[in-house]
């Protein structure tokens, strides 16, 4: 009886501790204002815009999000939140405007880039490049 009690408490403790880790891993929902979500990308996807976006990606994004956008950058382990995997269907299902908004505004470990990249065309170029990361 006593051993069963100890076993039950141990299993419960492990589950509780495990739940804490699971909750930490799941990203919180990131609502985007309607107006921002509906914004249309003025930059056409072509070799030039993809190259420009890739250049910005390598300098500003790859250290956290990884070279292929899988969220496995060299700095990822130091962050409280896991950088997004940009290749997933979930991420790619967002509108261009939503992605633009999130790059501009940032949240938590994700910095805001609207001051570092004040030219909106740069951020739109990144959005164009992000579409090429899709699996």
């Amino acid at each position: 009886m006593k051993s069963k009690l100890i076993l039950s408490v141990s299993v419960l403790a492990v589950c509780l501790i495990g739940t804490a880790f699971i909750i930490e891993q799941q990203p919180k929902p990131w609502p985007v204002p309607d107006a921002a979500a509906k914004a249309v990308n003025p930059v056409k996807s072509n070799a030039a815009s993809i190259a420009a976006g890739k250049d910005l990606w390598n300098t500003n994004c790859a250290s956290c999000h990884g070279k292929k956008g899988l969220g496995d950058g060299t700095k990822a382990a130091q962050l409280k939140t896991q950088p997004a995997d940009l290749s997933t269907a979930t991420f790619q299902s967002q509108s261009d405007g939503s992605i633009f908004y999130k790059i501009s505004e940032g949240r938590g470990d994700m910095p805001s880039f609207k001051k570092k990249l004040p030219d909106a065309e740069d951020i739109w170029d990144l959005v164009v490049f992000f579409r090429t990361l899709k699996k």
Partner: protein
Amino acid sequence: MQIEPIFNFYTKYVNMEFLPIKTLRILGLLLLTLSTNQLNLRAQDSVAPVKKSYVKNTFEGNYIIDDQSVVLPVQHSLEADIQHRFGIMNNGIHDFFGLYNVTNVRLAVSYTFTKDFQLGIGLIGDRMQTDLNAKFALVRQTKDGSMPVSITFFGNVVVDPRDSIYDNNATFRKTSDHFSYFAQLIFARKISENLSLQVSPSWSHFNSVVGSDGTIVTGTQYDHFAISFSGRYKITSKTSIIANYDLPISTAYGALPNISAGFEFKTSGHDFQLFVGNYGYILPQNNSFYNQNDFNKSQFLLGFNITRLWNP
């Protein structure tokens, strides 16, 4: 001896009384007329003006080794700079190719108030000098080719604060003897995504000159002219090869030219440059005028620049 405040320098040397009142009134009326005409044109013109698109990242940051680049950081950027120069490498392993002999260090900060205007201040180990500098982007190269080059002005005022009490060689007679000045026009073109080149004529003015024995040669104002050629070639999106050739045009004091080359590594917030060259003074007028390291005698030294940018 007390150093005159910079404010007193400007009131002494920039005398607004030279502009007569009548001329100012005429200029004012002219400006008003021109601005009114501009307003009328806008009212009549129903076509939206085409927004110009400018080339970006002609260079990665403010510095190309010892020279200023044509670019300014984005508006409202705060930049901190650390610059080190080591001893010449000719002593080989005895001082580990100059690495044990740190000859000069500069710590500096600058702030970009607008997208076209930057102010900075720096402290440098060589003769305990302080520099106040300004950079103006005058013209930017456009993507459509209507403006084929970017043009930027860079200038500084440097004070050597040494006093005869602390340094027997520093026998400045007048306050103004402590100052030197530098002005440069930088012309650059981004030729391709990977290659950018620039040429920069410069003028340096010294209110006094340091002789070869280290004493101040007072009463000897000197104007010095030089020209610099710089380039950057990107080998990856974050790594570039950078190089300079700096040539004194004035030769009265026997200044020697400089060849420098190295690598630049760019991240989101940092810019690292590792290089070899002949220049060791860091401040442009001192490099241009005092350099005696001869590349024909392989008198090269190692150096690095680190810059960090914040966008508060």
